[in-house]
């Protein structure tokens, strides 16, 4: 499903003429199979979020290959990656990343609009998805009017609405209390079982990492546990 081979990345820092390279990831290789929940764990600054950003196509790797469903995504242009993300990847962010001027319904509907789904079809799918995440009573609430757990459910609904085979989650419980966190993790496991969605979860929390069928550990940009599992 997702194959990462010899992935390295460094950031270029400093002013022109005084630029220095800051290595972040060193020769990472691993793979994630379809239907798996894989947790990537590591301390703050270990490079786990950079890894997720590279897989998402938000940044381009310095070297190495990332293959998703047999396609080398590192060769994609920005437009190609945008289309790929829309159709293949759902995102759950730590701070939800909902558009504050849009209602819960509109936030969930957004990927469907971007894909060009008809209005009637959109209405049906959005309402079903709201139902699935247990927010059918809050369609017209703006993010500011919802609790953290509810906002994250809206975020999950938005990630789910186009039925992507992969969901990338970056610290999905980072802004939630422990009770809501437990409920959300249970919900992710449920989705994984019901829809066979592959989850790649970035976290620093061992509790969260436990829901994964496998855990990869990154330390100082090196994959110290769970690499080359093919």
């Amino acid at each position, binding site marked *: 499903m997702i194959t990462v081979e010899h992935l390295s990345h460094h*950031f270029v820092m400093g002013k022109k003429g005084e630029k220095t390279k800051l290595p972040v990831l060193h020769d990472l290789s691993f793979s994630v199979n379809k239907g798996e929940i894989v947790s990537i764990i590591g301390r703050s600054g270990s490079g786990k*979020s*950079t890894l997720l*950003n590279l897989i*998402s196509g*938000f*940044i381009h790797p310095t070297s190495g290959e990332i293959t998703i469903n047999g396609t080398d995504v590192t060769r994609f242009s*920005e*437009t190609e990656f*945008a*289309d*790929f*993300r*829309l*159709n293949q*990847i759902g*995102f759950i*962010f730590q701070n939800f*990343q*909902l*558009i504050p*001027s*849009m209602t819960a319904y509109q936030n969930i509907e*957004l*990927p469907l*609009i*971007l*894909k*060009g789904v008809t209005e009637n079809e959109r209405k049906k799918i959005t309402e079903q998805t709201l139902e699935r995440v247990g927010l059918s009573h809050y369609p017209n609430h703006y993010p500011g009017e919802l609790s953290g757990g509810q906002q994250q459910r809206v975020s999950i609904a*938005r990630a789910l609405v186009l039925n992507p085979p992969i969901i990338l989650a*970056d610290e999905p419980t980072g802004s939630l209390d422990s009770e809501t966190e437990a409920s959300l993790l249970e919900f992710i496991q449920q989705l994984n079982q019901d829809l066979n969605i592959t989850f790649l979860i970035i976290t620093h929390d061992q509790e969260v990492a436990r829901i994964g069928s496998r855990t990869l550990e990154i330390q100082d940009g090196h994959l110290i546990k769970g690499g080359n599992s093919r």
Partner: protein
Amino acid sequence: MNFKDKWRFVQQNLKKNRVRIFMTVLATAMGTTFLIVLASVGFGLHDTLLKDIMEQDNLNEISIYGYENDKGEYQYITNQHIEHFESLNNVKTVRRMNYLGQAPNYHVDNFEVTAETQSVYFPAEQQAGMTLTEGNFPTQANQVVVGYHFTEGLIPQDMDYDDLYTDDEVRKEETLFSENIIGKTLTFDIEKFDENDDVETTTFEVEVVGIVEEPVQRGWDDSNVYINDMLLNEISAFTETHAGNRYPDDDIEGTPTEKSYDNVYLHTHTLEQVQDLTTQLTDEGYYTYSVATEMKQLNMLFTIAKAGLIFIGTIAILIASIGIYNTMTMAVTERAPDIGIMKAIGANPRTIKQIFLLESSYIGLLGALIGTAVAYLISFAVNLGLPLILEAVFEDQLPEGFQFSSIPLRLLFIAVAICLIVTIISGSRPAKKATQIDVLQAMKREI
């Protein structure tokens, strides 16, 4: 993403900053109004002048007022030239005329008037469109037709000018010639001076057989007497001069030595033939003038003037476009997090660009439409108010039908098109900037 959904995004965005959008639309509207009103003056004056020219009944006419021979010498138009003109393609008829060398005093019953007398070729005049309100065209030497206003000029003989009018400067009823002039006999004296300045006079009698139709042009009086060539020849035979001059031809510089015409007019079948024929005759050495040629020059002049006014007006829209650029740049900056989220979940950069371009186009279009409506109001007010102001301040009146400002449909299209193009261009850079927003920066994510 279809247009309707993009439009929904634009509407949501517009609602966020109503005051800023309103001010930007206002600036665009003011620019458009300025452009249209400014250019409308050029269009208005052009229309007025064209209307004035088009009201003339001589649009198909080419005036020929001389000929330059191979030696570069000026020559009068003679019968030989007339024959040449009549042989040319597209020539409907050739009018030719001579002015009688003296303005005789015409007498009818107890009334008199001094009138210009023209010798014309009536068949050609008829073909060119001369019509009579009453009577027939002359067939004999002693028959004439008179101009529409000829009888208005007739006054009782030996009456002082001051006695003709009432205190209100209206002609007294009893001083008007109230009978039908048709069938009446006009008498007039022709004078002939010899070398010693001794005068000899003879009286001619002619019968009025027709009255010419009123001139089409506003304010033109036709008090002439139209005679035929036979009568002119009789008068010339008496005076022994060209066209019945009082004094011997030797005393008048430039008098033609053979039968020639003071004015010659060629009439074509259509307006389009005028230009070609004028060019041909000019190439042959004739001095020509035609309203069609004048119209062409006038159109050229006004086209340049209108283009200049539109250009100046465009500067106002360009200034307004700075506001649009500013508004759109601020919109992109403010919405950067939203754009980042949209890009993260898979929005195509092209779609984001189109949404912002649609927004700037909407501002431009709304400004153009409001500006157009205001321009129409101003144009209407100017056309209504200017004559009143001129009358009040300068005690002067504009000619009837004068239009200071005119907004034809094409000016509307030009203004809206300029406004749209300028606003799209000014919105394109912010729109491009929106597509270049870094997803991670916009979402303020940790790296």
